[in-house]
């Protein structure tokens, strides 16, 4: 078996993990979730979720990767052979997420190129909305009306894949060099946006909306679930990426503190991004005399409609700040996207013994072709439904099984003893309680609640046929391909003792 590549040092490994964890969601999801769930008071459940779910899950994934020196299917298969199926599920989630994540990056490329005209297309919310849905996405009237592959989306998707393919193909040393730019640069750019926002009239209105605490909301369990959901989905756990990245570290690597640094860095960036987002939105609300509640949005609506429209109203340097914002989005997305590609590429190398170049190229070409339907007029519907089903069901299931496998089968005490050998911060009975009971219970409840809601009304009011075919179809594909990869033994599987 070829010797496994390793990160140059612990700092590069942590930087890679931070780059993977910090993505578009930190910029476009956290600020909205915080503002909607108690404002400043949201920090209490958020910190609680970070300490009782985020960091423990990160420790588990780091631990699984480091102790087995293999991808998710090997890491879980070494606990119990049938669990390698869950490992493949995680890896396939990474594959499917990357298919649509690169399409979102494709939108960002388009917006970056369109930023010189931001004052025109972002003149007001209606114009910005029309630009996004009509000029960029060419949205059709439903998920089954594809119309055509639109050139702007096609090229955006292709550029995204070429960029991340080239980065991953360059190996860990190449990735390490890229990370020196893609991790710190977004922080600097967000700081520039923040300073610009704070110097605008009305920024206090936005920051009040973001930070004023509504303590009464803390008695609402939905707020606590939102905090756990935000922590869980923003840390890149549950799709094998952290396992793959950790597998490139020596076995004596320190774990708990590395996990804590990664998790805290992710949350620090979210908090900072919230300030940058809401200071500019506050200015926009005052300038257009629109209530904050009406312009406060999450997701693509914030990043591609509201925020650009707010930037278009800046007194000076509109194009500069527009371009700066879209470069920030691209930088945030690129290291998350290549971490997802690395997850799949490393797993294929581990499974079939093929070279990094080969596995990366196969994955990138397949993913690009599979992403072409997302470059059509129906793409946004498909993307939204796929994202919901993968996140709400597949990823959450993987994370629950990881907790239970480590907590009950491997044994939380054994795992903690192993981890504590090199730990700077020791883990103990609280960690054991969290991974055996608390986190699986919260995630389990979240899955059941989503499923019950789904039964009462189809997701986002889409036609049931679309939700069924696209959502369940994606999950079925993950299960079927996962089962095939589990059941087809390879030489590497036998060497690893997982068949």
């Amino acid at each position: 078996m070829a010797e496994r590549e390793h990160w140059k040092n612990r700092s590069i490994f942590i930087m890679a993990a931070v780059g993977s964890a910090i993505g578009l969601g930190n910029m476009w999801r956290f600020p909205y979730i915080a503002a909607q769930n108690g404002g400043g008071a949201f920090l209490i459940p958020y910190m609680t979720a970070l300490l009782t779910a985020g960091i423990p899950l990160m420790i588990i994934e780091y631990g699984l990767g480091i102790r087995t020196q293999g991808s998710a299917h090997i890491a879980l298969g070494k606990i119990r052979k049938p669990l390698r199926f869950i490992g493949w599920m995680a890896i396939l989630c990474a594959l499917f997420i990357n298919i649509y994540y690169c399409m979102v990056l494709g939108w960002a490329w388009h917006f970056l190129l369109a930023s010189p005209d931001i004052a025109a297309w972002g003149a007001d919310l209606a114009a910005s909305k029309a630009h996004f849905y009509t000029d960029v996405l060419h949205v059709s009237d439903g998920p089954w009306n594809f119309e055509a592959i639109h050139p702007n989306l096609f090229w955006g998707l292709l550029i995204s894949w070429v960029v991340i393919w080239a980065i991953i193909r360059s190996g860990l040393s190449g990735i390490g060099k890229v990370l020196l730019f893609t991790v710190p640069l977004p922080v600097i750019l967000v700081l520039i946006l923040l300073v610009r926002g704070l110097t605008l009239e009305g920024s206090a209105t936005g920051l009040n909306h973001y930070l004023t605490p509504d303590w009464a909301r803390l008695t609402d369990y939905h707020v606590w679930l939102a905090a756990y959901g935000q922590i869980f989905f923003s840390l890149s756990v549950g799709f094998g990426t952290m396992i793959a990245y950790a597998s490139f570290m020596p076995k004596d690597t320190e774990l708990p503190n590395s996990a804590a640094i990664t998790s805290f860095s992710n949350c620090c960036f979210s908090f900072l991004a919230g300030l940058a987002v809401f200071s500019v939105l506050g200015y926009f609300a005052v300038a257009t005399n629109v209530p904050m509640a009406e312009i406060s949005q999450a997701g693509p609506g914030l990043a591609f409609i509201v925020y650009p429209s707010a930037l278009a109203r800046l007194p000076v340097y509109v194009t500069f700040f527009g371009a700066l914002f879209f470069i920030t989005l691209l930088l945030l997305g690129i290291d998350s996207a290549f971490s997802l590609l690395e997850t799949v590429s490393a797993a294929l190398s581990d499974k079939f013994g093929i070279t990094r170049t080969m596995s990366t190229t196969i994955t990138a070409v397949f993913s690009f072709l599979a992403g072409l339907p997302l470059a059509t007029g129906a793409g946004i519907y498909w993307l939204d439904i796929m994202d919901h089903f993968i996140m709400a069901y597949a990823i959450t299931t993987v994370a629950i099984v990881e907790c239970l496998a480590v907590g009950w089968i491997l044994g939380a005490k054994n795992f903690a003893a192993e981890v504590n050998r090199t730990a700077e911060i020791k883990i103990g009975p609280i960690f054991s309680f969290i991974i055996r009971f608390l986190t699986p219970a919260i995630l389990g409840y979240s899955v059941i609640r989503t499923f019950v809601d789904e039964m009462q009304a189809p997701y986002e009011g889409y036609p049931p046929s679309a939700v069924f075919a696209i959502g369940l179809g994606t999950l079925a594909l993950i299960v079927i391909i996962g089962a095939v990869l589990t059941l087809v033994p390879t030489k590497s599987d036998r060497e690893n003792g997982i068949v």
Partner: protein
Amino acid sequence: MKTEAIIMLIVGFSLLYGGLAWCIGIAWFHSRQTGSKTPEK
């Protein structure tokens, strides 16, 4: 800005950035005491 928003701004920074600084401090302290746990290759 409202006073309570400013307080939460300070609290947020203290909790999150304080937590991060504490963790980095521990890593730095250990690397000084025992040498890096994962030395450069």
